């Protein structure tokens, strides 16, 4: 059973129409940049400057929209955290940590111990959260 996978849905797909507009803008912007280089070579500095400006603006805008769309889609997904189960042998103290399996619960007797063959007990089920950096606040 996969616990840490994200669930796909139609809501998590980027609209092909939006993608098309982004890529058309990107293509036009790149064309403007190429034309700007051409204009330089012909000595038309002013036209080259404007084309350069338009090209860079277009590239920046389409890249921004693309990343924003991706960020929105990623924000929609429900991340399932990895849950660990700790199994312990009360007799010999042997301890093992594994991924959570459906049916696990705290104080459930499970498979025999690998060392002493006594029944093992689930002693902990939890998830570990990695803090994204502590926020600063007055003490």
């Amino acid at each position, binding site marked *: 059973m996969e616990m840490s996978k994200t669930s796909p849905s139609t809501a998590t797909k980027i609209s092909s129409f939006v993608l098309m507009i982004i890529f058309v803008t990107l293509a036009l912007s790149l064309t403007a940049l190429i034309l700007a280089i051409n204009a330089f070579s012909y000595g038309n500095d002013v036209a080259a*400057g404007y084309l350069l400006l338009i090209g860079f603006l277009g590239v920046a805008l389409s890249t921004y929209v693309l990343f924003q769309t991706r960020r929105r889609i990623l924000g929609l997904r429900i991340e399932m955290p990895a849950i660990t189960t700790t199994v312990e042998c009360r007799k010999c103290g042997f301890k093992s940590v594994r991924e959570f399996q459906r049916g696990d619960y705290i*104080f459930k007797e499970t498979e025999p111990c690998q060392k002493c063959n006594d029944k093992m007990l689930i002693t902990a089920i939890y*998830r570990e959260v990695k803090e994204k950096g502590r926020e600063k606040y007055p003490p």
Partner: protein
Amino acid sequence: MNITAVMEALQNQIMQEPFGEYSWIFNLLFYVVFIVFIFYGQRIQMYVMLREVEGSLYKLKYIKDEGRKTAIETIKEIGKPQTDPTVRVDRFLEYFTIPPQSLDPAGVVWKLEHILDTRDVRFKDEVKLMAPAADKTQADNLENTLGVAMALNYIYKVIRHFYLLGKKTLSLYIIMQIQMILPLVMREAEAYASALKAFAYGQPIGDGAGALVAAKIMHGHETRKISKDNVVASVPIEGRTAYVIKAEGPGGNVGKIGDAVKTIIDENEGKIASIIMIDAAMKLEGEEVGEVAEGIGAIIGGPGVDQFKIEESILKYRIPINAVAIKEDIGDNVSPMRKEIFDAVDKSIERIKQVILERTKEGDKVIIVGVGNTTGIGQ
């Protein structure tokens, strides 16, 4: 021709005569924008707010649909129904409960209890019909999964209502009030979203911290059923007898703690030296997850019936009541238990022992109540 020369040419053009003879167009444009913002500024702001609510509504819809899908999949997987449960699940998600009339508040608790009991029986029957092959633990977890899906459905519908109402009336105040509380609503919805899988798989959740404390204390001792969905074990602690109460696990249960406490007090004819309750409590921003705090009073959430019953029972015999709280936020409360909360359980047990030593004498009887949803926690 190098870049510096081009930049210089551009700069000269802009500095000398920006946009040449067409500069009046830009001046005019500036004034038009200025006037538009004077008259339509609020409306633009409203559209921005509506857009923000719309974005959150998309997310809420996605979460709500995931909830419904998870519930249906879990029912199919565990319950092995003969027919497709989708229609029944959809009907279940629209269930509502009408709280009793409180114009005359006398006796409202008992009326509320009756309504809640009726709802509980109805839910259990529905789950049995939807998932005939599920055992008690699985049925309890399924009931919780459906409860979460129902809550998500309700949140989505309320936000959608205000969004559409705001769009229809174009009232800034309708839109503003929903936009202002949106971050908190989204936080709650996201917390419920993570609770879905926890209940579906039967994982312990943050709310179960109190139940886990009781489970750890009573583990290895004989338990007996007491009142509806509760268990009690008599455990010797520091020369005292502790009656440890928790909801019966590992299914998703909160039990009727109020009835259980009353039964133990009555069985002992009120000769209880102290009651110690442990529950997960909402932390304030800035507090650490898993912080343990101590206080006085019946620490128990829910609609208030159990708190009322406990307070009534202790008042009769003047029994002192102590509370131990394990701090966590709304997200941690309904999502799979964090390690910090799990570690706080042992600290809470130490606090309980300290309270027992300080507040009672040897030979006394005490009641320890572990409050919370006991999904994924045995005894």
